[in-house]
């Protein structure tokens, strides 16, 4: 059983951190695109509740939530977004390329679907090295399921029965285009056609449900019987990239979003959240102070780590 309050705390923490990014954005201290996870926090929190530090997640440009949920340090996160030398990648990565190998957070890519095969390869290496019970998570959105490398990866992982969790955060949008305009296939049938068992979660707003259902999927992968496909229905509250909302653009329904938000536990009026918020705000302030004090990325590092 999962401590729901603990999961809610983690989800709220991620939301408040990203809301802080929205506050900061007009100040131009973060001079690069941000793809916010707001609305999708429960997926990352629920899944990561079942992962060990030795399990690896391969993430993408909308990676704040997974970075934070898997244990990536917050001060180095803010410093990274601000292009500071104290950033987790010395300012060379920014928001779109977060990573922290110490917590099993492998490199995030801005090219859709391009890290799915990395999870498969790491799992293959794990098999060859004779490791046991490590899980490799390929995290992607519904748009990635339209890329060829996605199918190639499902096929290879299934042939070799590799310990991969194919984790789709399905927010129904690829940039501004709805899933129905892009996909002619049924993802469950697709997954099963490759011999990969398929599990889906409709309640992607509730971290405790995500945690419980994804536990089944992850346990199955860990036991070594092959890859599992886990699809989590979720909703992106903000625009594709940037700190704003864009319901007025007309490409998606605000009514659907309103109905979804009514089920989002982070909007619950609860006294416990007041205490959570106090603690989280303190952590954010401390982390921001670290980032502010960190010097800008060093010019001497321009040509380091090229080869």
């Amino acid at each position: 059983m999962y401590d729901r309050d603990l999961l809610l705390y983690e989800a709220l923490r991620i939301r408040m951190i990203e809301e802080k990014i929205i506050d900061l954005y007009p100040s131009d201290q973060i001079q690069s695109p941000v793809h916010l996870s707001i609305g999708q926090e429960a997926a990352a929190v629920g899944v990561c509740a079942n992962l060990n530090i030795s399990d690896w997640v391969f993430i993408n440009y909308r990676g704040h939530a997974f970075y934070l949920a898997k244990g990536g340090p917050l001060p180095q996160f803010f410093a990274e977004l601000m292009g500071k030398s104290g950033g987790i990648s010395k300012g060379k990565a920014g928001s779109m390329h977060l990573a922290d190998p110490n917590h099993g957070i492998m490199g995030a890519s801005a090219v859709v679907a391009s890290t799915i095969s990395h999870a498969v390869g790491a799992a293959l290496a794990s098999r060859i090295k004779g490791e046991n019970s490590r899980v490799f998570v390929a995290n992607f959105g519904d748009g990635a399921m339209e890329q060829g490398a996605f199918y190639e990866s499902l096929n290879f992982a299934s042939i070799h029965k590799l310990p991969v969790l194919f984790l789709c955060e399905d927010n129904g949008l690829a940039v501004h285009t709805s899933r129905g305009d892009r996909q002619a296939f049924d993802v469950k049938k697709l997954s099963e056609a490759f011999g990969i068992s398929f599990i889906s979660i409709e309640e992607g707003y509730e971290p405790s449900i995500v945690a419980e259902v994804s536990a089944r999927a992850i346990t199955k992968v860990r036991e070594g019987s092959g890859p599992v496909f886990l699809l989590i229905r979720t909703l992106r509250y903000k625009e594709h990239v940037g700190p704003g909302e864009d319901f007025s653009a007309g490409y998606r329904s605000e009514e659907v979003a309103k109905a979804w938000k009514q089920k989002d536990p982070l909007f619950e009026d609860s006294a416990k959240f007041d205490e959570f918020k106090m603690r989280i705000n303190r952590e954010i302030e401390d982390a921001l102070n670290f980032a502010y004090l960190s010097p800008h990325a060093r010019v001497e590092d321009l040509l380091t780590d090229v080869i």
Partner: protein
Amino acid sequence: MSSSTYRAALEKVMKDAMEHHQHTMIIGQGVTDHKGVFGTTLGLADKYPSRVIETPLSEDAIAGICIGASLNGLYPINTHIRADFGLLTFNQLINLAAKYRYMFGGLFEVPLMVRMVIGRSWGQGAQHSQSLQSLLAHIPGLVVVMPSSPQSILESYQYAITSYKGPVIMLEHRLMYELEFEKQETNLVNPLFGSIKIRVGYDVTVVATSVMVLEAKRAAEYLEGYGISVEIIDLHSISHPDHQIVLNSIRKTGKLLVADTSWACYGVSAEINRIINETDSLMLKSPAISLGMAPAPCPTAKSLEDVYYPDVHDLVASICKLHFGGKSNSIPLPMKQSMTDFYKHFKGPF
């Protein structure tokens, strides 16, 4: 003096890697079959079944799988029996492998090798004939090497596998596979970087890549009989050539011919001329000449293919033009003969 074929050297480095480095994995289409990537992986799958991996026809994912495996401690060697299949991996090679170290501020290293074999002649056609070195060498983060001898293979592959911590692209030339070479010293301090002066001369410098190094040697030996002294530099590391070797040679001869296996524009020829012009634009006593594939896709018909590729005839003509300027000379040009015909029956030494 011992000799070896290009193919035997490849077979040896693959075998040594599997035997001595337990983290090596060979993965690609055909690595376990009876042909074994032109005989370079034969027998390895039987001996190391878990580390020699046949693949579905999924070059894009396989390239990504190599990156993931490398992150988890293996040394993947990804083979492509024709370099044009490598084009399907450019997202992974350029967007990910080349940047994985830099983009994450040094948090990761992705040591891996990609072997791409350039096809040529026997009607390889527009696709299998391509030589991708300049496309790849353009990208910071990639090391691109074109071995032109077994010795280069023995040194550079072993160094890549045992010591280098990033992605290396090895562009092998199919035409050289069965040729016998006498042992030579390449004199490279670091076999993934730098170029090799393989012939000393005083009149004209030829900077050559891959199989064009052999053609340059044929041309140089031919012209020696007519009193023209040709210096040859095997560029070897396309991404990280030795600028000083090239510049010192041009300072001496003042005459430059670049002979590359690919197209001239935006390629090796352009880069060599950039290096010279940005150092001292007066170094050249006459305009440089570039030889490469004709500026078109490669035709399949033999009558067209034979004139598509430059050969010893074109090298000799170009070197004479550089040496004599506009003045006429009495040196007869060797017959235009397709390299395939020549090398098919060729038995060393080089």
